[in-house]
């Protein structure tokens, strides 16, 4: 059994895991919509920029991105300005996970928007809506139900991937239990981590399942 000090450590680690996940998914959804619209834009430069962003962040390992933000940026900063930059690892995690998730969510959202029949945009324009109004009131709301499953997927992956932050000295859930396992030589500490990850992902899955049913109610005949 864990001592109460160990429970506190596990709890703190879990909070770090949850904070990074929550921050990244919120920022990712917001930036993801912007990027998705960029991908669908008429303007070639916007399309190219969005494509480039997604290409880069999906095409390189998340761990590498984390290292780049954590190690490379202070070095570049030192080279170019001559002064030290100390980045809080938590801030690094927020930035990296948000940027990375944005790329995946952008593609999910873009596919969602493209799955809405073209007649919907035409009908919205025929009653005088601008592109922005049609997107906000007609097109994007119809994607919600279709986005739940893939976004839920992304959320579960994200939650587990946050364990990578142990490599930049953040004591998240996995690293906390690893420290305990190493100190005691008892690998069973990892089971606590596994149980908590499973518990959290189960909650996410149940939540997204229910949300999907609720958001799709209008499709019922």
């Amino acid at each position, binding site marked *: 059994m864990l001592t109460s000090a160990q429970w506190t450590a596990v709890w703190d680690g879990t909070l770090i895991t949850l904070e990074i996940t929550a921050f990244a998914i919120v920022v990712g959804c917001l930036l993801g919509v912007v990027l998705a619209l960029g991908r669908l834009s008429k303007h070639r430069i916007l399309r190219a920029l969005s494509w480039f962003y997604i290409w880069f962040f999906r095409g390189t390992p998340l761990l590498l991105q984390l290292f780049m933000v954590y190690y490379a940026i202070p070095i570049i900063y030192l080279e170019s300005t001559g002064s030290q930059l100390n980045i809080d690892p938590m801030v690094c995690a927020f930035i990296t996970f948000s940027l990375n998730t944005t790329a995946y969510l952008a593609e999910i959202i873009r596919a969602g928007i493209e799955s809405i*029949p073209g*007649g*919907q945009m*035409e*009908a*919205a*324009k*025929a*009653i*005088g*809506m601008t592109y922005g*109004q049609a997107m906000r*009131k*007609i097109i994007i*709301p*119809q994607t919600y139900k279709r986005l739940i499953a893939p976004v839920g997927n992304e959320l579960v992956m994200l939650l587990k991937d946050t364990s990578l932050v142990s490599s930049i000295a953040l004591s998240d859930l996995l690293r906390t239990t690893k420290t305990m396992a190493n100190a005691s030589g008892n690998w069973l500490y990892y089971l606590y981590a596994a149980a908590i990850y499973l518990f959290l992902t189960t909650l996410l899955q149940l939540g997204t399942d229910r949300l999907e049913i609720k958001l799709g*109610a*209008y*499709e*019922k*005949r």
Partner: protein
Amino acid sequence: MSMVKVEDVHKQFGDLQVLKGINFEVNPKEVVCIIGPSGSGKSTMLRCINRLERITSGKIYVEDELTENRMNGKTVEKIDPQKLANLCLDIGMVFQNFNLFPHLTVLENVTIGPTVVKKENAKITEEHAMELLEKVGMADRKDEYPARLSGGQQQRVAIARALAMNPKVMLFDEPTSALDPELVGEVLQTMKELAQEGMTMIIVTHEIGFAREVADRVIFMDDGVICEEGRPQDILLNPKEDRTKEFLNKIL
């Protein structure tokens, strides 16, 4: 004054010439039916009027105001966007596949235009919407989602949705083509009532009986040109052009 005027309109999709110099004019309160074989450019013509398609060259006027003046796919005369938006609001459209917004109830489908586009007061909009739903016989289904309605009911709601913007002219793009035969009548009846109230209507249709009964004028299009136009009894009963005769023989 004319409600809609189309001058030498050409439309090309890539190498395909869909409209090859169309001219016509629709007067206020007039009901014009456009008939013709599939691929003759009828729907494209209609969609060009409210700019769902941009014409390749020619001019379009709405209420005597220029809305399009293009040449070889380029705009010749730029129209003030605000003015253009206002003119487009005077054009309502009803689609073959209804295109109701599935995530909104019947009532919300009708109110969303005025609330979002005109920023109208919610209470006034709703009262107006209920009047329109009453008129198309859908008031008792106001809280249903479109998925639970028949095609005919959806199309009647779509008509109410277009009318909610108080258009001066209504475009109908084969409004009954996607309906089961037994549902066609209710939609045509609604359209007939609208015509009797004096709405200006341009209707692309295959319903020859309806055209004969309701239209003031029939336009027969084939292969991107207007072959023949005139009073319904002349065009539909005594067509002069061989192509019109051939088409009518096929569908009647």
